[in-house]
């Protein structure tokens, strides 16, 4: 994606004298001095300069600076596809809310409060986003340890019940961080919603229909929902905190476990951000391999959406048929990466292994077969009257919602916004293959269904083209750029070459310092734009790594759309938004 052009920046500079502009190769931002002026600037950017697509808001903590926190908005102009960041320094409880301008900022600000303890003027319910009410700490502050503060004795019940052995069966610390009890949880629930209707239904967190551990509070009038809130954090594992404590290459397997349905796509977004920051060239073969696997993973992820979405609406067999194809894709991934689900196949600078023997033939056969399977799914659902009745005109998301809430991926495309990072900022080998972006019409559940079905078809096309290109390549083409100092050489070199072994040892043990700078880079995940913002201070681990999660923002529109719909519609809508908890909560 091109960052904001110099003409645009000049215009903005002209309108506001007080701001400074910072241009880096992969990052362009406005520095705003005065916190009170931020509202005006955002309004100006939105209304006059058309930066109306809200992408992200996050905070960075600098304990030693005068103004401790740095808030940062990332906006996109959906017509010219220019991207722009807006930075503002502030002390805690000083920043005015951007909720009125971009409703999507509501959740982002809640998260900022939860993680950093910063407050927002005018934000009426700054509540804990991921942790429970009464939680005492702000975990992402720099002075908070990664492991938390142990304050509770929690022995292993297995050991207590089955008796201690020597040597002990468990090697663990008996002191544990505070585990809330039901009272804390109830308090969290009560703080979210004031009952207006007949009864408040707890939908989740451990419920078969909520795609993991999401927790919805429905205020019901009959079966109609008149008020909703979503409680997240039932899978908040502290990914961003972990990233600050690890070397760059060590964080890669963690990205797999965020959106665990699209592991390769996550890795691709991440390695890309680091490669941009460290300026690493990736060989062509690796680019093709990455593209092929990312697209296979996209089909894989969409198949799970199809299966569970249909299961939620009562079509039990589609689920099994979708999983039948998933197994085949997982076999291809397992054959190359050695693992089915969380594959960790990509590496900074390339891929971990060369293509396994026979991969291309298997993939070719799979794609050929997949077209007919896709027809089968269409036959089961697309014209089915009950399916139409359940999905048509249900959960309509307008284009304006898409911009304001920062919705991306199939949800945005279902509403007619052709925002696809693969096209507007091609990465890997997406500029070398030919594919189309399907867009919906009115943005109901059915449109999103059709968009995803078509995307599977397009992905299969891309895979075909990648296979073609890879077949033409010579055998010993490099698949990783091992010359770059920050790239760990692949194992086959490490075992045979002293120099590579030493290099591998050095990076694995000490990490490799990455130059100072900032980068925001994103990839098109099956669920939307997964962005990584990295603030590097020249060390081997990032100072701050922000994950712009697509599911998180996509889900934020849910309370608005579901208003006055029934519980059955909520199931259909949630299925069509298709969030993954690992990513919403990180």
């Amino acid at each position: 994606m091109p960052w904001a052009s110099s003409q645009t920046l000049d215009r903005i500079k002209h309108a506001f004298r007080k701001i400074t502009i910072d241009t880096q190769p992969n990052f362009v931002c406005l520095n705003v001095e005065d916190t009170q002026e931020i509202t005006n600037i955002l309004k100006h950017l939105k209304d006059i300069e058309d930066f109306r697509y809200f992408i992200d808001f996050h905070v960075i903590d600098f304990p030693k600076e005068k103004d401790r926190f740095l808030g940062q908005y990332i906006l996109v102009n959906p017509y010219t596809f220019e991207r722009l960041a807006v930075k503002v320094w502030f002390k805690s409880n000083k920043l005015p809310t951007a909720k009125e301008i971009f409703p999507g900022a509501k959740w982002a600000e809640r998260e900022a409060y939860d993680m950093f303890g910063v407050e927002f003027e005018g934000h009426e319910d700054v509540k804990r986003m991921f942790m429970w009410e009464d939680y005492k700490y702000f975990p992402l502050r720099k002075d908070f340890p990664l492991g938390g503060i142990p304050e509770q004795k929690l022995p292993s019940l297995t050991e207590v019940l089955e008796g201690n052995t020597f040597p002990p069966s468990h090697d663990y610390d008996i002191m544990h961080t505070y585990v809330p009890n039901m009272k804390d949880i109830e308090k969290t629930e009560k703080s979210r919603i004031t009952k207006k209707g007949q009864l408040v239904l707890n939908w989740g967190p451990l419920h078969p229909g909520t795609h993991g551990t999401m927790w919805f509070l429905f205020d019901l009038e009959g079966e109609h929902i008149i008020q909703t809130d979503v409680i997240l954090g039932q899978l908040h594992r502290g990914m961003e905190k972990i990233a600050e404590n690890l070397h760059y290459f060590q964080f890669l397997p963690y990205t797999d476990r965020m959106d665990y349905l699209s592991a390769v796509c996550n890795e691709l977004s991440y390695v890309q951000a680091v490669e941009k920051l460290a300026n690493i060239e990736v060989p062509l073969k690796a680019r093709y391999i990455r593209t092929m696997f990312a697209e296979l993973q996209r089909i894989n992820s969409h198949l799970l959406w199809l299966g569970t979405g249909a299961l939620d609406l009562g079509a039990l067999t589609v689920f099994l048929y979708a999983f039948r194809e998933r197994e085949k894709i997982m076999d291809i991934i397992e054959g190359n990466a050695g693992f089915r689900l969380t594959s960790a196949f990509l590496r900074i600078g390339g891929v971990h292994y060369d293509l396994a023997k026979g991969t291309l033939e298997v993939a070719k056969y799979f794609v050929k077969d997949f077209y007919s399977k896709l027809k089968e799914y269409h036959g089961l659902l697309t014209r089915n009257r009950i399916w139409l009745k359940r999905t048509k005109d249900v959960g309509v998301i307008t284009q304006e919602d898409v911009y304001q809430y920062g919705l991306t991926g199939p949800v945005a495309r279902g509403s007619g916004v052709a925002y696809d990072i693969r096209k507007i900022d091609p990465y890997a080998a997406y500029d070398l293959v030919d594919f189309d972006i399907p867009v919906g019409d009115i943005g109901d559940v059915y449109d999103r269904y059709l968009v995803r079905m078509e995307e599977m078809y397009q992905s299969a096309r891309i895979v075909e083209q990648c296979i073609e290109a890879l077949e033409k390549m010579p055998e010993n083409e490099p698949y990783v750029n091992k010359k770059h100092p920050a790239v760990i050489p692949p194992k086959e070199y490490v075992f045979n070459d002293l120099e590579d072994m030493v290099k591998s040892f050095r990076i694995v043990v000490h990490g490799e310092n990455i130059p100072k700078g900032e980068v925001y880079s994103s990839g098109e995940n099956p669920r939307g734009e997964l962005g990584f913002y990295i603030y590097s201070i020249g060390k081997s681990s990032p100072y701050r790594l922000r994950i712009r999660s697509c599911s998180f923002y996509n889900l934020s529109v849910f309370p608005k759309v579901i208003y006055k719909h029934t519980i059955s519609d909520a199931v259909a809508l949630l299925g069509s938004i298709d969030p993954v908890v690992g990513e919403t909560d990180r």
Partner: protein
Amino acid sequence: MASSINGNGFITTTVDELLSWGRRNALWPVTIGLACCAIEMMHAAASRFDIDRLGMIFRASPRQADVLIVAGTVVNKVAPMLKLIWDQMPEPKWCISMGGCASAGGPFPTYSTLQGVDRIIPVDVYIPGCPPTPQGLIYGLLELQRKIREKKVTRYEKAFEEFKKDLSPELLSGIGV
């Protein structure tokens, strides 16, 4: 007589053995997935692996289930609710801790993650892996069946009462008792 007819595994002599046969061949897990492992759990139920062969079907209500498969990372916030689900299940019940996160915190030694589900729920079978493959899960389930066959009927309630005697009140409130 017992051993001569027992060859097929279904004609038994004592009531205990009959009960244990019924219980181990109709282990119904709760449909609860927490994280990545849940996907592999779904795969275990789907076409290729199909744990319905072993007589296992997923029930959505904990009241109707026998096995709690803790599939995924248990974070501190969800721990009391998971404990509630466990308490809602009628005896006899079993718990399988699936994957590294559920067993010991896995790769997440962080402020928000419970370091092992066995700190709130007594676990019968631990399955390693991140996530374990469906084969791994099925192996774990078979191990559970073996455990039920060998141990006859497990009585956690009694052991738990014993265990509660030694604990301080604030600790008990911590684990939601």
